[in-house]
């Protein structure tokens, strides 16, 4: 054989497609998971949160106020209740998520030029419900200000609020990019661990078969990495390029920049997985012990829980995982339109991880080769 590295590459590809478990992780899961999550979160925002109104004022003004709330996209007035008891009953049975109580003196107060107070009760089973009812009521009350008081003092310091990225405050656009990046790492981790465990089961604990083409650790590793890259280049196109445009998530980066970023991410994930895989025995063990880590790893990336609020220990612990830099980098590139220059920190970190995990992998394979030789 002239180029043993290609034989290793071909053998490893066979290991992948002949094992339904690995096919599941390498192809089916990265294909389906992003779609599932996108479908779940795709409506992006909570519209028309149902709210109950208890109007003790029964006035033209109060009805006008409620109509304005109803007109906002955030809230829909589900029903007028005659008293708080009835309103609570409706919220308790989850037909509405907020109660607006308008007091009897509402209209009188306003006509007399006195500030009046309405009470807003929000069900806290979702922060988005609270945000929606508060936003709609505030907006309507500001409009009322212009209606009730023609010669009201104009706001001396007006303001404008602009969301620079993810401009519609969408939930999918915020969370799914992070999940996309994480799926790649976790599936590589599971798939490579499974391949590794199978090889061990077949070769009495050795990481490579007893065959002269595997006699060189560096060659073996590179051959394997080429095989994983072959599969994941295709999966990456699906995950990082097709998915965002299919579901209209922000996709500000061009393909070239993304490719330059994804390469070190894939390499870091692959070498990281090869290191972890070397310590896991049993073909089913990886799933049992790795899947639940996805949540803590996602939180350590700082996409949902802000990075500055993560305790130092967990912050640096998170640096062990390629996904921490992968998620931050990808979000900045693709959701915020940063250039590679602006994500130099993440980019360098991924290459550094690639280097470190590569060296560890190399050592592990060299040691395994030595041990294996001694056994025979």
């Amino acid at each position: 054989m002239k180029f043993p590295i290609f034989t290793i590459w071909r053998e490893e590809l066979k290991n992948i497609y002949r094992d339904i478990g690995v096919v599941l992780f390498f192809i089916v899961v990265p294909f389906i998971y992003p779609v599932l999550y996108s479908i779940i979160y795709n409506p992006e925002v909570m519209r028309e949160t149902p709210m109950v109104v208890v109007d003790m004022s029964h006035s033209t003004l109060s009805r006008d106020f409620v109509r304005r709330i109803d007109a906002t996209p955030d809230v829909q007035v589900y029903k007028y209740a005659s008293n708080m008891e009835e309103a609570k009953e409706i919220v308790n049975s989850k037909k509405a998520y907020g109660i607006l109580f308008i007091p009897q003196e509402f209209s009188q107060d306003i006509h007399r030029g006195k500030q009046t107070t309405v009470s807003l009760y929000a069900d806290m089973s979702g922060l988005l419900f609270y945000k929606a009812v508060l936003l709609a009521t505030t907006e309507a009350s500001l409009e009322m200000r212009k209606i009730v008081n023609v010669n009201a003092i104009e706001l001396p310091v007006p303001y404008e609020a602009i969301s620079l990225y993810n401009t519609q405050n969408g939930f999918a656009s915020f969370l799914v990019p992070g999940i996309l990046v994480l799926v790649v790492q976790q599936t590589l981790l599971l798939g490579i661990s499974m391949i590794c465990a199978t090889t061990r089961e077949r070769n009495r604990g050795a990481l490579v078969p007893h065959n002269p083409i595997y006699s060189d650790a560096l060659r073996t590793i590179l051959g394997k990495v080429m095989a994983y890259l072959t599969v994941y280049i295709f999966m990456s196109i699906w995950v990082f390029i097709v998915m965002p445009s299919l579901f209209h998530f922000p996709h500000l980066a061009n393909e070239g920049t993304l490719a330059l970023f994804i390469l070190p991410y894939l390499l870091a994930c692959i070498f990281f997985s090869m290191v972890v895989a070397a310590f896991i025995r049993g073909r089913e063990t990886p799933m049992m012990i790795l899947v639940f880590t996805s949540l803590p790893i996602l939180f350590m990336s700082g996409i949902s829980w802000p990075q500055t609020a993560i305790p130092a220990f967990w912050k640096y612990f998170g640096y062990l995982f390629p996904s921490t830099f992968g998620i931050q980098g990808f979000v900045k590139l693709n959701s915020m339109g940063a250039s590679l220059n602006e994500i130099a920190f993440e980019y360098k970190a991924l290459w550094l991880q690639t280097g470190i995990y590569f060296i560890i992998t190399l050592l592990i394979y060299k040691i395994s080769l030595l041990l294996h030789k001694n056994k025979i």
Partner: protein
Amino acid sequence: MILQTARREIERLCKNKIYWFCMIVAPLISLLFFISLMYNGLPTKLPAGLVDLDNSSPSRNLARQLDAFAGTKITAHYPSFEEARKSMQRGEIYGIFLIPGHFAQDVVVEKQPKISFYTNNSYLIAGSLLFRDMKTVANLASGSVVLQMGRARGYTNAQIIASIQPILIDTHPIGNPWLNYSVYLNNVILLGILSLLIMCVTVYSIGSEIKGKTAGEWLKTGNNSILQSLIGKLLPQTIIFFIVGLMMFAVLYLFMEFPVNGSIWNMILALLFFIFASQSLGVFMIGCFPTLRLGLSFACIWGMISFSISGFSYPVDAMYPAVQLMSNLFPLRHYFLIYVDQALNSRALFYSWPHYMALLAFGLLPIIVLRSLKWSLQYKSYQP
């Protein structure tokens, strides 16, 4: 006898390290992680950038006010918006507060200078928190100016206040007045992880009997009755998971003092039913896919999806109707709704009983696969 099966199972559980890991170590690691991650409740001191184009005493005063909020910390001053935006793109700040030039002067001559604030909603939580603080400061700025102007024109304070804000909104977030994210996240995520692990362990403990060709021996301890064998096998696991769940409760409700506004017994009952439902799903999964690897994959996918579809961060009401229906097939969804009723809102048990019943109804799933599962146990040799 069930006891005999249970004794055999306990031996198996003790012998294999993976059970120790999945039943005790993994839940504890998760507990430690999430509790310590969100120990301080709401994130504070989120970095924001200031672009003060006026640099007058009033504009600096405004910036100081913003910085004084617990949620916001002005970490940098930028000479222009463009530079602040670049910094935001690098992820150094989550928001920009921009005070226009001639701000102080324009206020005095009533030219209504406009304050702008920009938030980065790629980080939705950080963006929303900063938005709240910045908006409050902008309103305060208007308020103090109006108060001065009004007084000069001889209005009373009450008149002035009514003129700026005729309707005051008094908010009452029911059950979680601190608007504390960690209350939701911890309560649901930790139980979700528990559910994931329960499903995996259930599938593994049955699937490994098929793979290891010990299924016959197991059935024999249960008098060849599949039902008896299953109960004997799963009951010890139920007890261990229940104890682990109670430990989580102790940390959440006693140590962290998260609100339980209703009766804790209702939550403990929910926990028990929740464990039962997860185990039942596990049996169903390995019954449908009597190969260890496929059964486990099913469990993992279901367990991971449950975090999203249970609706504790993004509400189920905002999902597509078909997804809303699907959400009922996840024990975590029902547990979350019971949690909202019983722990957050202390509602009457009447409102939650459909969800307790739904959790119990998961117990019907194993019945569907009982016969085929027995067949697999008796005749199916493991296919790699």
